[in-house]
């Protein structure tokens, strides 16, 4: 058998990594500001959030479903956190725990309704998106919480590593490692993947699929809430509109990262680091396009073209590696 090509090279992650490096080179040479400290710091914050949002979507895509309520859920959790800190005076650490629990709870609702009613998660989360967001607006009357403890908001603008990197990025990368560990090296992670890949077979093999699906939704809620906290720290306030109307602004990065990262939309496959690289790639391109000055009105156009190019290249890479692994 032919094993000249190392396994890592065959993966989607490798293709992404190459693309990321290529774009870093292009942008560093063709623009002034790209490698400036300010820009890299700014990038690190944006990437941090996009990774977290992407992961939150990824764990539901794992089940073959989608979580449209992601943004609404994240904002609701963030607003809950703002309320805890500002109105209730609850200390930061406890607030964070409460918010993560709250996010998991909203995720549990998504999962429970999906599993128990048999209605597809696409529709369930379409509805809960409206419901969560509606309740959030109703309860907060669209008022922001902006008198947050300074220790908390300062964390969002803290600069590490010679002022190049935001601590938020470290949280996201750590989360990636934890998730990678869970999916690769634990019983529960394997069961989540198996349940997502073929629910019937998994069920008959003694896995409680319903429970696994609910776990995935809870994990999604947890990660979305974490993203909500991170965004709150970054903008220094909990704001109802921080993910746009109905939390929609989060949906595109949420899809882009895992999808570029090679997560299978039909479920049963996760690529934690692929999602991370996907988020990095999108952020890089977006930032680079602004710097290159294609004219902001055309940014989306070029972003689309590059995305298309990236997935086509990846397909070409796959084709090439498969062809080379054929025995002759």
């Amino acid at each position, binding site marked *: 058998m032919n094993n000249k090509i190392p396994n890592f090279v065959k993966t989607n992650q490798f293709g992404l990594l190459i693309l990321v490096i290529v774009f870093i080179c292009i942008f560093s040479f063709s623009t002034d500001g790209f490698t400036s400290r300010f820009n890299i710091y700014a990038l690190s914050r944006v990437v941090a959030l996009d990774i977290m949002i992407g992961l939150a979507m990824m764990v539901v895509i794992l089940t073959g479903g989608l979580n449209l309520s992601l943004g609404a859920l994240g904002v609701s959790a963030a607003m809950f956190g703002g309320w805890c800190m500002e109105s209730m005076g609850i200390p930061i650490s406890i607030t964070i725990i409460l918010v993560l629990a709250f996010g998991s709870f909203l995720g549990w609702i998504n999962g429970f*309704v999906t599993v128990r009613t048999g*209605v597809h998660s696409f529709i369930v989360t379409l509805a809960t998106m*409206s419901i969560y967001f509606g309740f959030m607006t109703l309860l907060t009357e669209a008022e922001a919480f902006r008198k947050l403890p300074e220790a908390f908001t300062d964390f969002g603008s803290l600069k590490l590593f010679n002022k190049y990197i935001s601590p938020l990025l470290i949280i996201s990368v750590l989360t990636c490692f934890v998730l990678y560990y869970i999916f690769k090296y634990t019983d529960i992670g394997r069961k989540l993947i198996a349940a997502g890949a073929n629910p019937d077979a998994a069920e008959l093999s003694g896995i409680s699929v319903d429970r696994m699906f609910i776990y995935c939704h809870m994990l999604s809620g947890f990660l979305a809430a974490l993203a909500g906290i991170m965004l709150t720290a970054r903008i220094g306030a909990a704001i109802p509109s921080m993910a746009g109307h109905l939390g929609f602004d989060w949906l595109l990065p949420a899809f882009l990262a895992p999808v570029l990262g090679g997560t299978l939309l039909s479920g049963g496959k996760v690529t934690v680091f692929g999602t991370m690289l996907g988020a990095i790639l999108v952020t890089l391109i977006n930032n680079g396009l602004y710097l290159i000055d294609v004219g902001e009105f055309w940014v989306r156009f070029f972003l689309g073209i590059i995305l298309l190019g990236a997935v086509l290249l990846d397909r070409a890479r796959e084709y090439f590696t498969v062809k080379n692994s054929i025995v002759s």
Partner: protein
Amino acid sequence: MSALLKKDWFGLGLVLIFGSILISLFKPAFISPFNLYVLMLSVSLMLVVAMSQMIIIAIGQMNLSVGAIGGLVAISFTGLMEVYSMSILPAVLIGLLIGLACGFINGYITVKTGISAFIITLATLYIFKGMNLGITEAQPFYEIPEAVKFFGNAKIFGPIPYLVIIPIIITVLMWILMNRTSLGRYMLAYGNNVQSSELIGISSTKIVIYAHVISGLLAAIGGMLVVCRLQLGTPNIGDSWLLPSFAAPVIGGAILAGGKVDVIATAFGVILVSIISQALVIFKIDPFFVQIFLGFMILLAVFINRYREYREERRTKVFSDE
């Protein structure tokens, strides 16, 4: 009777009838001619959009770019008339051509690369919307010929607007396509099981491209109808299509994994969604409650239509295995 019970649209039809009776008992204004006119208008527009998504759901894919195509065509259509003083007919034809081209691009790339349409249309969503913004720089076009305005505003007789003509024709044609032509049946077969239909000898290339082209054309028609209705071509047309375009077919019993859509039930789904959002206005729901109500109504609508399919739908995935 039992044959009727099996139809996807039957349950929805009952819900619609009882719902409407209930609403008009509380608010007689609901069945006033003007309200019916308004209802028909909003149904007409969404109908075309829902059909545009439905045909892609039929083959087990998703088209995230329906709104972007609709928007691009809408501003091209008005732009041609305003900037190049083109007359209506050629502008319509070019609009359709753009829709066709966008759909072709989606379908061609999807089928030739084997990459999920979700991803391809996510990328083309950016491209089409980016072109839209690049061309308009976010400025609307206002110079709409009177004939177009008339079409968007006038009534044939009673409360029936001209604007329903095209959507009704499209719905009928779509019914025929999905139920009485080989092409439509092959699309459903393909949506049911890609591998089987390839083994049977159905050409994926043809099916996928046709479905996307039809979807593109319908999105284009939707975009131009919205222009008639709004009487201006703004770059935002299509921005709000995505969710309703899925909601209506799914409420109508479509299975997102593909192979099962019902044209009549989808139309009923559109009507139901329109009635719900109208009812929220008619009953003067506090704006702070509107979202919450909407969410629960969507869930309720799906439950009502879904309950009997509990087992089948339980674990169907959005995307079939690639």
